[in-house]
């Protein structure tokens, strides 16, 4: 479907529909928060009943997410030692590989058996589909790294991780997408990287994105789109088929797992419609995780957990942060949006709409590690984390555009549109309201209880039921704490038992941390969208690496 994936420069009914859907999430969130507060005054009995219903829903949802968090983590740990390069070789010799797998099955450990079982299932399906399998040696990985303020110190670790992986670096093409408005130091740094890594990759390019291109905002999407267009010409000149190219868009601080490209290539090759798919790894924030305050660690681990859970629902998975996709799909869908902040999730929706729903995200059970937003002291770090979360929550800007597209998309089944629309809407509203409902508003009926309510059975039952529900949530919290300790990288020095206990106990502060550093920024983002106060993109500091992205003004021509 031809659809202009932009919320800017709309007129008439399109503009009205856009504004309606821009207002809807924020209005719903505020309606819930204010409505429940007022209801606690006016009809505390009804408010208490709704709170019980909500708490019950929440605890089931929590158990659901915890269950799939465990499953997902289990899957991630299964694939830690997978030899993806061997699998890649096997894909080009399917029958032999399958025979070998069957013979070798009995000698493996249980995790290896499960991993092999999954692998065998994928290969069998690939064989049955009859789809042609490209030669992995001809696959090229185009890695785009947009920068505006990043220094060589930040870039070096990231680019080195491409070299240090198992996948041949000769098949990796690195492009630094550099903003013209970057300082001379940054530009010099990019050139320095080009010189340092010359000859180590398929190619290494620095592409300068000019300022003031009409229709572009000062967003990352504009930068990487410009670089991708340049690379389109590059591939055409070199007669490299787009089907052979997998593009990955990484942040400047992204350090990929050694298995990343191997895993990605494998998943690309076994994917039945590989040019209709994006590939989403699990983002973790381990680069400097031990150097940041505990509450930041809890928050960022929570973000990784969320992605782990999301990866178990490939039907509704959406790209986030660093991700990869078919270069052909990128070109056909007309690249990333050039006037949106949340280009990472927007590209998925763009492709989904372009291909009339025939597009999906394949989860990669491999990690990419990034920096935590740290600014050197607690207060600045809190501010930076708040801004980062608000930028993530600004992904709600996709909702009105997606809904507008769905209204026009006749070929996408209604059930799918409904499913995606409801999930997108519910996810953002839940993000902006649940923590407040659980930690504050849920207690208001008891606090403001007049005589009528305070002499009802419900008044005495509600705290008991709530306490039981929250007691159950402790089980989920314990699981989360254990998972967080497993997921975190090993510290360089061994910690005492007390210190490790301290790391675990930081999770007890989850309600407060999430309320102020997750829910509140989400509510602000939705409110801004509701009021038409479109957001600029904020840079976030890192402790050892001082600069990240610029703050583009939206809608700047």
């Amino acid at each position, binding site marked *: 479907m031809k659809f202009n994936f932009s919320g800017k420069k709309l007129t008439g009914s399109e503009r009205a529909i856009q504004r309606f859907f821009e207002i809807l999430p924020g209005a719903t969130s505020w309606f819930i928060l204010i409505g429940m507060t007022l209801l606690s005054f006016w009809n505390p009995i009804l408010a208490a009943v709704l709170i019980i*219903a909500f708490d*019950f829903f929440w605890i089931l949802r929590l158990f659901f997410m915890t*269950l*799939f968090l465990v*499953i997902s983590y289990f899957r991630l740990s299964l694939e830690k030692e997978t030899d993806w390069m061997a699998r890649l070789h096997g894909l080009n010799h399917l029958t032999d590989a399958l025979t070998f797998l069957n013979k070798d099955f009995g000698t493996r450990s249980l995790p290896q058996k499960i991993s092999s079982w999954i692998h065998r299932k994928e290969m069998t399906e690939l064989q049955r589909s009859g789809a042609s399998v490209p030669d992995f040696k001809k696959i090229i990985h185009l890695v785009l790294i947009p920068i505006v303020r990043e220094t060589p110190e930040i870039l070096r670790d990231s680019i080195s991780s491409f070299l240090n992986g198992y996948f041949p670096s000769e098949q990796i093409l690195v492009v630094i997408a550099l903003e013209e408005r970057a300082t001379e130091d940054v530009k010099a740094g990019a050139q320095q990287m080009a010189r340092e890594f010359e000859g180590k990759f398929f190619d290494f390019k620095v592409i300068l994105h000019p300022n003031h291109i009409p229709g572009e905002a000062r967003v990352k999407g504009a930068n990487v789109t410009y670089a991708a267009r340049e690379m389109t010409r590059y591939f055409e000149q070199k007669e490299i088929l787009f089907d052979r190219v997998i593009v990955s868009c990484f942040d400047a601080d992204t350090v990929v797992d050694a298995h990343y490209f191997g895993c990605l290539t494998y998943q690309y090759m076994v994917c039945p419609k590989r040019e209709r798919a994006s590939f989403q790894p699990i983002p973790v924030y381990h680069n400097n995780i031990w150097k940041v305050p505990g509450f930041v660690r809890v928050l960022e681990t929570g973000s990784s957990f969320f992605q782990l859970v999301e990866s178990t629902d*490939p039907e509704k998975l959406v790209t986030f942060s660093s991700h990869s996709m078919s270069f052909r799909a990128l070109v056909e869908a007309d690249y990333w949006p050039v006037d949106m902040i949340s280009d990472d999730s927007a590209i998925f929706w763009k492709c989904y709409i372009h291909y009339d729903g025939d597009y999906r995200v394949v989860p990669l059970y491999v990690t990419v590690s990034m920096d935590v937003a740290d600014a050197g002291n607690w207060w600045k770090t809190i501010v930076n984390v708040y801004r980062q979360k608000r930028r993530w929550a600004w992904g709600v800007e996709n909702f009105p555009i997606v809904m507008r597209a769905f209204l026009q998309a006749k070929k996408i089944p209604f059930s799918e549109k409904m499913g995606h629309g409801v999930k997108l809407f519910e996810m953002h509203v839940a993000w902006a309201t649940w923590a407040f409902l659980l930690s504050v508003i849920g207690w208001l009926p008891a606090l403001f209880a007049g005589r009528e309510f305070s*002499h009802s*059975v419900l008044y*005495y039952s509600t705290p008991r039921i709530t306490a039981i529900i929250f007691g159950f949530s402790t089980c989920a919290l314990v699981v989360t704490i254990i998972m967080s300790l497993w997921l975190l990288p090993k510290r360089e020095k061994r910690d005492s038992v007390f210190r490790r206990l301290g790391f675990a106990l930081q999770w007890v502060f989850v309600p407060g941390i999430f309320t102020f550093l997750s829910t509140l920024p989400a509510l602000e983002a939705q409110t801004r969208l509701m009021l038409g106060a479109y957001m600029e993109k904020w840079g976030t500091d890192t402790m050892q690496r001082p600069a990240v992205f610029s703050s583009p003004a939206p809608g700047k021509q």
Partner: protein
Amino acid sequence: MILLRRIVLYLFTLIYLVFCPLTIFYALGFMYQPGSEHGIVKTGLVYVSTVPSGATVYLNDMRYEGTTPSVIRNLIPGSYQVRVELKGHQLWNQEVPVEAEHASVLEKMLLLPESLKKHSLGAQSFEQMTVIPGTPFLLLARGKKISECFVYDLKKKLEYPLSGPLFEWEDAKVLQTHLVSRAKTIVVKLERQNARRFYQFDLSLENTPKDLTSLFPEEPKKILWDPSAETHLLVFKDKHLNYLRSDKKTIYPKVAGNVQGFGVENKNLYLLRDDHTFAVMTLDGRNEKALLKDAVLGESLFEDKGFYDIDVLSPELILFLGEKGALISNRLPYRFAHAEVKGYDYAPRQKKLLVWTRSEIGVIDFSKAEESETDVFEKGPRLIWMFTRGKSIQKATWIYDAAHVIFQDQDHLVFLDLETFNKAETHELLQMKEDTAYHYTDQTGLLYFLDRESGKLTAAELLPKRELILLPFPTRQEKTVKRRLMML
């Protein structure tokens, strides 16, 4: 994975759709009972919270697990015999009704000790004790002379003479003491060798009192002042008011005339005139503003010719207590008692007024108005008589956050238990020295009185200190506003 996710999702959805309504019904008090109509009954519960806590609760002679505070749920509607026992305390035993979907709440049950723990606060014996309401001061007198009068500071736990040794009239006899609620000064009329003088004493420290005699050219009928401006006095005599400045030793004569009643609050003078008008003005009689413009209403309310004490309990509540005991308010139904009311005690946080006559004790709850399904006329709160068997009630006080009452009947101090679904019950606490007063404050939970035998100032713990209610919001110093004692 997709299939697993779907299965788990449907399973959880089913769990939610089944168990969430069941949980809500349970929370509302519904219970499954085979044999009943539809198999479901609506239950009620009993909530018992005692001071001290940790008491054992019996319901129809069956012991309930755990100790107070207790919530006893899933009770079929009906009447239950509730017995509460705590070692060292008197038994509490009453019938409690339980209604469907309702909680029968006994949240401020005070378990009285079997014997009150008393301790003396000094070595001296006294004949008289006067309470200055709203202050931590007690006036104690060993005899009739001013030198035999002492002050006891409850906060500092100090006893000291009212007048210092340098007071020239220390051997004078006390004829009259004028005091005002919340004020830390008193005005005393003294007599020595047929000469009479008026002095203002500051209770907070031993110092030389101020001689106000020159400010009283005639014998006042009543003296009043604002606790926040203790050097500004109003003197009532012959239906007019004089305004005095004790700091400047000046009199402003007849600032108001035709006075039928007056009161002072927040540096304002509230004046009831004999033409049944009611107004507010500054203490010196200026800037008058009418508060009651309906002359007909005024006439019907203040039909008695006698004097009215006016007490501004809050911006919304003003009380008028007539000489003959009529109790009138600015709130509907205006006239709460026609005669015989001797005093009252107001609990501002709970908006409850405790009223007593010689033989009765009643309560007006201003926080709720009477409503009738059939009557369209607004009624306002009612004075409900809780106790009617008194012999000579001198004083009554709210205790435990206005949940119960103690009162002095002759020289007996009695506890009136209002936390009940039946008639209020009385329990005698102790006997005090005859013709003396008592003092109680929720802040300490202590009862202060003169011991019957020794005459010593004694304190008895009525409310365990650790069990005192921690109020959710910061509150003002004193929770009850007592009626000013007119004169001794």
